[in-house]
């Protein structure tokens, strides 16, 4: 459905002019709120609006109660059919959306989840660029939770039936598809109807997994990662968030909201999640058991859906320890602070990167693991990491950083990959890279992590069964190779598109067009071609990498040719080939502006023919084909294999002929004295022969005269 939806950049009924007129007024009303979430959307043509397939969105009418993290909600209505009350959630274009969830949730109704009617890529006037807009059915009731309250919104005895049962349903559906919601939190819940008998969870697909979650909702391993790098996660992460949600609804405010993020991290690491919550908040007694089960910091021990269902059914559930982290007999000091747990120490090392090198390098941490923690396995791994640093050779600084990073991996293998300022879960590296690249941090940190092969080390250290992370291992195998290649089509750009399925192409040429699917690329370039001067090639590093990842065909030959920009013939041929391949696979059939763009720059490609006549023929054909906008024909023109081979053979013959002529001329010009000697010899021979012949003739004539 979404694939069939058309991009409609502007209001069709009011026209582009009206949009421009409204623009100024619109800016003033950018944050104007709708009178009420239940109020019917305006049915008249008044106000600026954007038509998207079956829907109409009003960019000036905000619905902040339906906002989800960085995604903003706006008033919307159905145009062609009555979809009931709906709202549009406009995703932040600088953050990747979750493609799997969009695909799974769109168009189907799942109990416990807000109905995602459709989603589409739309030109969004306030941002002056395209982005993804999700169309949700408005819930029947209001938002469940508004932070800052002092008493429970829902009675603790009603919580199981009102909240837990509907949320179990959506979590079951998603976990069956190996997906996680990752946006379960109290302020993302809505009452399904006005009776307030059950709740439904809000959006979970418009931003990276866990990005919008307050740190308290994240389990202890994922909370240490940057928000964008918290990873896709699994059911156990949703269960943890559900535990916090129940606690929040039970106590009437977000737990630990009076503490800063850093304090929450330190408290959770020091005492464990449940102990921290129990110590700081007054949890409802009836809910203590499920909260303890769902906030267990060991993801393998944490309650799953079975345990929660058993508890709902009133059956006895295996009790869990809130905090299973082993404590050391003595503390390890890093940066002036004592740490008793390996996980806490790992975080301390990450926060005191430079100061941590000495204790790691000198074996102090290794001794602490062996004697203080009595953990021979990790101690052995640490001494192995130290030995590898000693063998590192010339680049000592890099080896030291790698040692610190590996040290963290050994101490907290289930935590995020941490390297200097970079911190992301293994299943969150892609969104983290996307965030860094689009928010000015660049790809340097990610590049170092991949080039130094830290993910591989992390994978080797993971304890227990974590399918959501281990499934990523195959994806990372190619990343290091991509990073080590310098040419177009590789580098961090390739990694970005390989890791993030819904990442739009970040090429400056088409970034505003929000190109996610390969089929969108050429239409976007065609649009760009109609307005920009054709001074550089329509393929840059981002576009080349985007094509390499998104196109199913093998593009390695073209990318290999792009490695040498000095060879302008092969370079231009490869670029045309890439574009032609995309057009051949995904259309559209005619791209006249892009055709002209390519035609203007393909002069070097005509040099593929040696023969002047052939080149002139190609140059005559190019404008004709360019006008037709068929890149495949343009490519075939310069890539006629039979003609090229013939041209090459003839050229080789011509070179040989020219060289032979050159040699002969040289011989003729330098053989003067030799020719004189030859002439002397031949002249004498000719003279003697002539003389002999005259003598013979004379004698014969005289003899004849005498006889007759």
């Amino acid at each position, binding site marked *: 459905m979404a694939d069939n939806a058309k991009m409609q950049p502007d209001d069709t009924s009011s026209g582009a002019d009206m949009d421009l007129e409204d623009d100024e007024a619109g800016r003033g009303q950018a944050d104007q709120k709708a009178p009420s979430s239940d109020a019917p959307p305006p049915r008249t043509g008044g106000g600026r609006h954007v038509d998207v397939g079956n829907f109409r969105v009003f960019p000036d009418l905000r619905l902040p109660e339906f906002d989800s993290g960085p995604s903003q909600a706006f008033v919307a209505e159905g145009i062609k059919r009555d979809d009931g009350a709906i709202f549009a959630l406009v995703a932040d274009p600088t953050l990747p959306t979750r493609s799997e969830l969009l695909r799974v949730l769109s168009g189907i109704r799942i109990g416990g989840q807000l109905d995602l009617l459709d989603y589409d890529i739309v030109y969004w006037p306030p941002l002056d660029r395209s982005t993804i807009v999700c169309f949700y059915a408005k819930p029947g009731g209001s938002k469940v939770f508004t932070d800052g309250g002092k008493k429970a919104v829902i009675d603790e005895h009603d919580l199981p039936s009102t909240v837990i049962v509907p949320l179990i349903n959506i979590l079951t559906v998603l976990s069956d598809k190996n997906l996680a919601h990752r946006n379960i939190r109290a302020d993302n819940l809505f009452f399904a109807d006005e009776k307030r008998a059950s709740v439904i969870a809000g959006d979970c697909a418009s931003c990276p997994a866990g990005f919008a979650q307050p740190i308290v909702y994240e389990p202890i391993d994922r909370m240490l990662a940057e928000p964008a790098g918290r990873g896709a996660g699994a059911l156990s992460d949703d269960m943890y968030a559900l535990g916090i949600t129940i606690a929040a609804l039970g106590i009437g405010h977000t737990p630990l909201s009076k503490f800063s993020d850093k304090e929450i991290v330190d408290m959770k690491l020091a005492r464990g999640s449940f102990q921290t919550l129990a110590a700081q908040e007054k949890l409802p007694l009836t809910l203590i058991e499920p909260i303890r089960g769902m906030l267990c910091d060991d993801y393998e021990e944490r309650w799953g859906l079975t345990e929660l269902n058993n508890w709902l059914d009133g059956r006895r559930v295996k009790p869990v320890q809130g905090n299973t982290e082993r404590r050391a007999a003595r503390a390890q000091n890093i940066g002036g602070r004592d740490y008793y747990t390996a996980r806490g120490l790992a975080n301390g090392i990450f926060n005191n990167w430079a100061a941590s090198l000495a204790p790691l390098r000198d074996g102090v941490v290794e001794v602490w693991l062996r004697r203080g923690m009595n953990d021979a396995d990790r101690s052995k791994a640490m001494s192995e990491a130290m030995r590898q640093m000693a063998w590192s050779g010339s680049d000592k600084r890099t080896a030291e950083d790698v040692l610190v990073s590996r040290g963290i991996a050994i101490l907290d293998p289930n935590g995020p990959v941490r390297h200097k300022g970079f911190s992301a879960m293994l299943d969150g590296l892609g969104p983290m890279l996307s965030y860094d690249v689009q928010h000015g941090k660049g790809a340097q940190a990610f590049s170092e992590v991949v080039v130094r092969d830290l993910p591989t080390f992390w994978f080797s250290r993971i304890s227990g069964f974590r399918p959501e992370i281990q499934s990523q291992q195959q994806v990372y195998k190619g990343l290091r190779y991509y990073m080590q290649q310098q040419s177009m089509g590789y580098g961090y750009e390739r990694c970005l598109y390989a890791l993030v399925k819904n990442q739009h192409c970040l090429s400056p040429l088409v970034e505003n067009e929000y190109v996610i699917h390969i089929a969108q690329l050429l239409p976007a370039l065609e649009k760009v071609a109609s307005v920009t001067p054709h001074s550089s090639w329509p393929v840059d590093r981002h576009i080349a990498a985007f094509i390499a990842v998104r196109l199913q065909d093998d593009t390695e030959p073209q990318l290999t040719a792009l490695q040498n920009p000095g060879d302008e013939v092969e370079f231009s041929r490869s670029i045309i080939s890439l574009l032609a391949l995309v057009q051949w696979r995904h259309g559209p059939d005619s791209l006249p502006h892009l055709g002209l763009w390519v035609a203007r720059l393909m002069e070097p490609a005509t040099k593929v023919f040696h023969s002047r*006549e052939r080149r002139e023929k190609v140059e005559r054909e190019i404008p004709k084909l360019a006008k037709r906008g068929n890149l495949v024909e343009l490519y075939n023109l310069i890539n006629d294999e039979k003609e090229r081979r013939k041209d090459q053979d003839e050229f080789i013959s011509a070179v040989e002929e020219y060289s032979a002529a050159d040699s002969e001329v040289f011989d003729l010009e330098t053989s003067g004295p030799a020719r004189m000697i*030859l002439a002397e010899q031949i*002249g004498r021979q000719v*003279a003697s022969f002539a*003389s002999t012949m*005259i*003598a013979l003739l004379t004698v014969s004539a*005289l*003899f004849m005269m005498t006889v007759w």
Partner: protein
Amino acid sequence: MAKNKDKAAKGAKSKKSGGLSFFAILVMGVLLFMVALPTFITLVVGLLPSVLAFFFDRHQGRYLARCVFGLNFSGVAPYVMELWHEGGQSVSIATQQLLDPMTMVIMYGAAGLGWLMYLAMPPIVANVLNLTAQRRTVELREQQRELVKIWGENLISEIEKGHR
């Protein structure tokens, strides 16, 4: 060593053949002296330039001697024929012929022409060869220009690349 032996053998062979022909000429001369003295006298006096050329031309092939002899003999042959046909092999007629300055002019003039031909022929041949070479050079240059016209400067750069 083997090469030196071969050379010596070759030299000995040519010397032997030269000696043989000289001996044959000597035998023929003696026979002619005994059988036809007037003819012998006419030939000896008339072919004197050839004899001189034979002795002075030491080049391989003795083309000078051959040239002079050919035309010299052409000049002498009519008088020998006249001696045989009209004079009945008379010494006095032979002497009379030889004392006629015209006879000497014809005989020795013909020998001189042979010598001139020997001198003139090499420059003529050299000119012919030079002209042929020039024409071939022009042809080849034209052929190269045609190739450049078809293939462009690429051809030159390709050849230069090959040279490097």
